[in-house]
């Protein structure tokens, strides 16, 4: 399914009376602005490692790596990850320094739907770098009945 049709479909879903409030591409953009302010973001230097097809959105392994010498003069200060369709747009913010040696952070995240994930790295010279990934989230057939 191409991205435009997919987004249009979700716009329809957002209007349904019982749909919970959810992040949208706009609220993700707003969350990113809160972090980067007026600065520009350059795509590059950041790698987002996510499985392209996810069997269950509850526990999605994610690794963000940033190409950086990680010296006192030139290192990654922070890594921020955002999502597009969860109830809120933030995933995590990590603070790093030259004491890390490598700008690689791994964790597991929840994804409520197939969506775009964006990772933004802030380097010590005040610049911002980004990468994004589109992931498809599926679900097993036989689930729990919470009632």
């Amino acid at each position, binding site marked *: 399914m191409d991205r435009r049709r997919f987004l249009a479909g979700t716009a329809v879903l957002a209007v349904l009376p019982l749909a919970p409030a959810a992040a949208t591409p706009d609220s993700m953009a707003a969350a990113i602005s809160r972090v980067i302010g007026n600065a520009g973001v350059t795509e590059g230097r950041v790698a987002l490692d996510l499985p392209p097809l996810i069997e269950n959105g*509850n526990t999605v392994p994610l690794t963000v790596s940033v190409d950086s010498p990680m010296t006192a003069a030139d290192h990654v200060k922070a890594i921020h990850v955002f999502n597009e369709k969860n109830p809120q747009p933030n995933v995590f913010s990590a603070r790093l320094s030259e004491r890390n040696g490598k700008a690689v952070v791994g964790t597991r995240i929840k994804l409520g739907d197939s969506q775009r994930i964006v990772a933004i790295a802030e380097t010590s010279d005040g610049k911002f770098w980004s990468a994004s990934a589109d992931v498809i989230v599926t679900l097993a057939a036989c689930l729990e009945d919470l009632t």
Partner: protein
Amino acid sequence: MSAPRVAAVVAIVFMVSYAAAQVGGDKRRSGYRDMGEALQKMQDDDTANPGMLFVQLGGELWSRKAGTADKSCADCHGEASASMKGVAVRYPAMARDGDRPLDLEGRIDLCRTEHQKAERLAPESRDLLALEAFVARQSRGMPIAPPADPRLAPFRAQGAALWRQRQGQLNLSCAICHDDNAGKRLAGIVIPEAHPTGYPTYRLEWQVLGSLKRRLRNCLVGFRADPWPSGASDYVALELYLMERAKGMALEAPGVRP
């Protein structure tokens, strides 16, 4: 041995035993093989497998005294790595003078009530699952080996009948999905053959470790049947059949499944 090396050795041991079970044209597939690479890595890495939190807890509980007898598992069974090796792969089994088969949880309950003189641990409780995970871990990589006890035969037959019985509003049986349609896709996911090779398992859907019984209940809800009551003999009977069906396949403990 450093932790990464231990993890690598464990992974190699597992893969070798797993490969051995596949020798001789054994085409059976553990649910492990139907998962994506990311989840397989999560299961294989003891430093990252969430089920290991429960194995660690189980190890602590193993040494903790309980009940009016003030005994720990260790007091009777010593080092679990020795005494529990090969145990999980031969359950469900019949207690010596029992009249019906027990799964591993039932056996742990029996020890608690009869030998530790303690209360049963609640079904699906964290502590019971932790002990089960810890015991199962001691059989990791070993082939599933259902006992030849003739007393188990009628219960195994009951399990086989349940496997083929159509149920629920969708009028499905286990066999229809997991024998006839295994390998095909349902709702985007590959239908597994449903071997109990990875239990207790950290099911991502539950976000916690859970038992085979819980997974079977999910199946029953899945085809809109009333789940069998908690404690029903049907669960153990079906597990008996499943373990026979999976005879020789390697036990993964703790498993990770979507």
